[in-house]
């Protein structure tokens, strides 16, 4: 009972802050609302008993990626670089497309009655870091290692892009 109340509160908060990301006029406010949204999602992970995902979500998204977003946006002169307001036709088209997508998604969810998870087979420890690590290093070893190669390539690429050519200015 209490847990489901927390779930409703958290979901409402998530939706509200996600909406504010889109609606806020100031890009900095948008980024901060996005950070808050990530916190709400981490809260959902805690409710699902997946503490490891919660911590990683905060470290990677809120702690690193969003700091870089904020970093870049702060460099802009926000007063000069205001995007022009879209014409009313564009706004109308956007609302129609978004509304249709919403209706479709709701219809899809209602059509496929997703089965409720059975309480007998439910394991509370699934999201724990030990279980996750064991699965990653046995069942999904090959995809895991392939992803590490992907990351390595991305890292080398970033270093190559950021490298100063001989004769370039410092900045």
């Amino acid at each position: 009972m209490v847990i489901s109340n927390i779930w409703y509160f958290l979901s409402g908060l998530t939706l509200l802050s996600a909406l504010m990301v889109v609606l806020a006029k100031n890009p900095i406010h948008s980024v901060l609302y996005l950070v808050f949204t990530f916190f709400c999602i981490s809260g959902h992970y805690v409710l699902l008993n997946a503490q490891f995902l919660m911590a990683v979500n905060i470290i990677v998204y809120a702690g690193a990626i969003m700091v870089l977003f904020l970093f870049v946006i702060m460099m802009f002169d926000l007063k000069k670089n205001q995007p022009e307001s879209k014409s009313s036709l564009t706004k109308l088209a956007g609302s129609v497309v978004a509304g249709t997508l919403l209706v479709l998604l709701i219809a899809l969810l209602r059509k496929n009655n997703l089965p409720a998870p059975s309480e007998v087979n439910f394991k509370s420890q699934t999201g724990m870091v030990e279980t996750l690590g064991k699965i990653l290093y046995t069942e999904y070893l090959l995809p895991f290692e392939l992803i590490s190669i992907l990351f390595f390539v991305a890292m080398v690429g970033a270093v190559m892009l950021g490298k100063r050519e001989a004769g370039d200015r410092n900045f």
Partner: protein
Amino acid sequence: MDLLSDFFLAKAAFIGIVFAITLGIAAYSTYFERKIAAFMQDRIGPDRAGPFGILQPLADAVKMFMKEDFIPANSNKWLFIAGPCLSMLTALMTSAVVPFGDTVTLGGVTFDLQGIDVNIGILWVFGIVSLGVYGILIGGWASNNKYSLLGAIRAASQNISYELAMGLAIIAILLFTGSLSTKAIVEGQQNGHWNIFYQPLGFIIFLICAFAECNRTPFDLPECETELIGGYHTEYSSMKLGFYLFAEYINMFISGAVMATLYFGGYDYPGIDFVTAQFGNNIAVFVGMGALIGKALLFVFVFMWVRWTLPRFRYDQLMGLGWAGLIPLSMYNVVVTAFGILIGKPFTAGIVGVVLLILGLLIHDQLFVKKKIA
């Protein structure tokens, strides 16, 4: 959860006590910072308020509260206020997972002296540390001042850069313990098997990163007054400035506690069995809590000692040390540690690793670095 159960009340009281201890130590750190600086520069230091000036933090607090609270006209008002609050919040949140002591039984309630014992303990610390930069970043931007913005941007890039080396140093610790829980890390180090003996290199990397994450000299580039006036807190006054300064001292104490937990056995101290046998379990545990706080205070002293000894780095030196120095070093440390665990001799492997590193550096120096002829 029953809000009025004895266990819940005991935990709440413990968290309140940790909170009070942290704030008290942070307040008195400002006094000892000035006293140590005075000692190193052959001065007397604060001695007016009370005997030996020990009431100085109180006087400072009163001064901070009484000053004019100024908000610049073109600043973003809410974010300007949110900056120092976020700094304080993230500084105080880390201590939730630091294990201050083993299990005690008081008034029929058995509980352990730790805020929360989650199985991701060290990741929590890491996550909160990575959030710590938001307070500085937001405050610096909201001030609408070029120097504040530059300070904030320096803080952000510095924190992100040094987090990587810090994370890699922690990975070597996790290889030993096999658990992310801070409690398990401390329990693995009981009876003198402190991680510092197995991980001397990892400890040095972690210590340097802790300096950078706390924005302490020699890495206090975000508030470098020769270049940036006051850095990110140029526009701040009154208690908002006080919060920023206070958050720095809290960070120092907490990072000292985390270093004691990871490398110096946490609440372990020599003669713990003797004390348990003589005075019972509870006394032994509380002495252990004192031992942890003592170790943390020792690190606070090291922070101050370094601040008044070393000059500030240049910005490119800071980035060069972080990316080209510490990250390869910590990767080397991870490999050496893993090899040591593989062959079953972690202690020997740690020592041999350090010796090989120094030898390698010496050979590299002799062969490839051109000497300036004086």
